[in-house]
C-alpha cells in the first residue's frame, strides 16, 4: 500500500511538472489543434487524475484495512529476494554504467574485457572463470557483430 501511495504522489508531481513545463513549448501564433503544448498538457492532466485516483484508492484501502484489522488474521509474510540480491543489482548496475562510460572513452573491446571480467566476479564466479569469460565473450561478440552482422563496434573518443 505504501508503494502505491508513493506511485500516486510521484505521478501527481510528474504531471504538475509536465503541465507547467509544456506551457513553454507554445510561442503563440498556433491554432488550437496546432498548439505543440496541447497534447502533452492534456496527457499531464489525465496523469494528474490517475495519480490522484491512485492516492485516493490507496487511502481508502488503508482505512478499510484498519477497520478490518481486528477481525481478520494477519497477512501472510511476503518472501521477497534476499537483501544481498539488491546489493548485487546495485553493483552490476554500477559496473554497467562504468562499461558504457569506458566504451565511450576507449571503445568496446577494452570496456567489454573489463566488464566481462568484473560482472561474473560480482555474480559469484572464480577469478579464473572470470578471465576465461572475459576473453571469450569479448572475442565472440566482436566477431559476431563485426563479421557476421557487419555492425562496427564503438572505438571510443580516444581511439577514434
Amino acid at each position, binding site marked *: 500500500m505504501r508503494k502505491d501511495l508513493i506511485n500516486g504522489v510521484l505521478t501527481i508531481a510528474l504531471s504538475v511538472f*509536465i503541465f507547467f513545463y509544456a506551457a513553454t513549448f507554445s510561442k503563440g501564433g498556433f491554432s488550437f489543434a496546432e498548439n505543440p503544448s496541447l*497534447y502533452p498538457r492534456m*496527457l499531464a492532466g489525465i496523469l494528474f487524475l490517475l495519480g490522484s485516483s491512485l492516492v485516493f484508492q490507496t487511502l481508502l484501502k488503508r482505512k478499510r484495512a484498519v477497520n478490518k484489522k481486528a477481525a481478520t488474521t494477519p497477512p501472510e509474510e511476503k518472501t521477497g*529476494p534476499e537483501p544481498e540480491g539488491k546489493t*548485487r543489482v546495485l553493483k552490476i548496475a554500477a559496473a554497467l554504467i562504468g562499461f558504457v562510460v569506458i*566504451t565511450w572513452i576507449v571503445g568496446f573491446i577494452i570496456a567489454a574485457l573489463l566488464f566481462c571480467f568484473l560482472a561474473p566476479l560480482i555474480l559469484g564466479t572464480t577469478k579464473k572463470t572470470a578471465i576465461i569469460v572475459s576473453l571469450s565473450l569479448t572475442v565472440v561478440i566482436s566477431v559476431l557483430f563485426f563479421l557476421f552482422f557487419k*555492425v562496427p563496434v564503438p572505438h571510443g573518443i580516444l581511439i577514434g
Partner: protein
Amino acid sequence: MNWSLYTAGWHLLDLNVVVFMVIGVVLGIIVGALPGLTATMGVSILIPLTYSLSPTAAILMLLGIYCAANYAGSISATLINIPGTPSAVMTTLDAYPMALRGEAGRAIGIATVSSALGGLFSVVTLALMAPFIASVALKFTSLEMFLVAFWGISIMAYISPGSMTKGLISGFIGLLIATIGYDPLTAVSRMTFGSVNLLSGVNFIAAMIGLFGVTEIFLNIEKSLKTEKQELFKVERSFSAFKEVKSLWGVLTRSSIIGVIVGAIPGAGGTIASIVAYAQQKRLSKHPEQLGKGSPEGIAAAESANNACTGGAMTTLLSLGIPGDAVTAIMIGAFVLHGLTPGPMLFTKNFDLVSAIVIGMAIINVLFLVFGLFGAKYFAKLLFIPRPILNTGILALCVIGTYAIQSSMFDVSVMLAFGILGYGMSKMEVPRAAMVLAIILGPLMEENFRRWLSISNGDVAGTIWQSVSHNPVTIVMLVLVTITLVMPLFQKTKLVSEDASAFVKKQLDEKKE
C-alpha cells in the same frame, strides 16, 4: 479476399532468409529453454542485429525466436519443473510428473507436436483473418485510428498485473515519452530539456532493450546466485507423440481457438491463453482428476494454446498495427527499423512481405517441430550453463546491440536509463508492458488525434456525433474503449490476470497436497 496475396512468398526462396529463419528458431529454442530468458527479452536484444538484413530475413528471424521460444519453455518445465518462459507455467503441472514417471521424452514429444499444431492452426487463422480486418481498417478515419490505438493501450493496462490505474499511469507516461522531440505538426521541439540528442525523440528500440532486456537481467540477478548442478531426466526421442496427439484432436482444436482469440487481445499473451485453455480442459475433460498428475491432455491444452497465440497476436499487428502481446509490440521496432509500418497499408504496399510472413510462420512451426523432436535432449544440456556467464553475456549484448541501432552512444545511455527505470517500476509494482506499447503507438495516436481536432475545427462534440451517426466502426470503438475503462469499476477482481493467477495458485496448491 485476394488469395493471390499468399502466392507472393518468393522471398522465402532466398537462402539468406532461410538461414536466418533457422537461426531464429534455434535461438528461440535456446531462449525459451533457459528459465529467466523470455521471448520478449530475446527479440528486443536481437532487433538491432537485424539492421543489415533484408526486411523479410529480419522479421522471420525474430518470428522464429518468438514462436520457438513459446514452445521451448516446455523443455525446462518438463526437466526441472521450472517453466522456461512464463507461458509454460501450466505445462509444468503435467509434464514434470510425467518426467518423474520416466516419461520425459514422451512429455516433450507431446508438447512439441501440440505446440507446432497450435502454431499452424494460428497461421491459418492469420492468413484468413488478417486481410479481412486490414480491408476494414483501411477505411478508418483519424478518429477511429486514434481510438484503436487508445483501446490497445487501455486494454493492455487492464490486463497487466496489478491495478488498472497503475497500468494506465504506465501507459500515459509512455505517451508522454513518445512526445519527446519535434512536434509532428509544427516541428517545435518538446520535452528535450535543451538536449540536441533528444530532438529526434527517444529511440524506442533502446527503450525496449532497457525495459525488457536489462531490467529482466537485474531481476534475475536479484533472485538468486545459486547455480547448483541439477540432475536432468534422460530425454529419449518420442515420435510416438504424433499417434498420441491424434487422440487429442478435440483438446488441440479447442485450445488452439482459445489461443488465437486470447492472442489477438492486446496484452493478453501466451501465459493467459495457456491458463484459460487448461482451465477449460479441466472443466470439459472426461478425466479431470488426472490433470496435474501427468496427463497428456494438460500438456496438449497448455502448449497448443500458448503457441496459437502467436498467430492471433500477429493478426492484429499486421492488420491494425496493434500488437497482441509484448513480443509483437517489440517487433514493431523491427518493422520501423526497415522503414515499414505494420497496419492495413502493409497489405497494399508490401503484400509480398505479408505473404512471406504468413508462409514463413508456417515453416517456422515445422522447423521447431523437427528441431524439438530430434534435438530436445541436446537443447536440455543448455540448462547447465552457469547463470553468471549467461547474465554477463546478455548485458554486454544489450550494450553493443543498442549501439548497433544507429551507432550512437546516446542510445546506449537511453537503454541504461530505461533499464534502471524498468527495475524501479518492477520494484514499485508498476507494469512495464503498457509503457512500451504507448511509446510505440504514441506518435500514431497524437498524429491522428490532432488531425481529427484540426478537421473538427473546434466543434469536437459535433464531429464526434457526425462520425458516430455515419460510421458504425466509431460506435464500436467508442463502446470498446468505454467498456475497457469502466469495467474495473464494476468488478472486484480483474477478469483475466487475477483470476488466472488464482487458478494457477489453486492448481499448485492441489499438486502440493
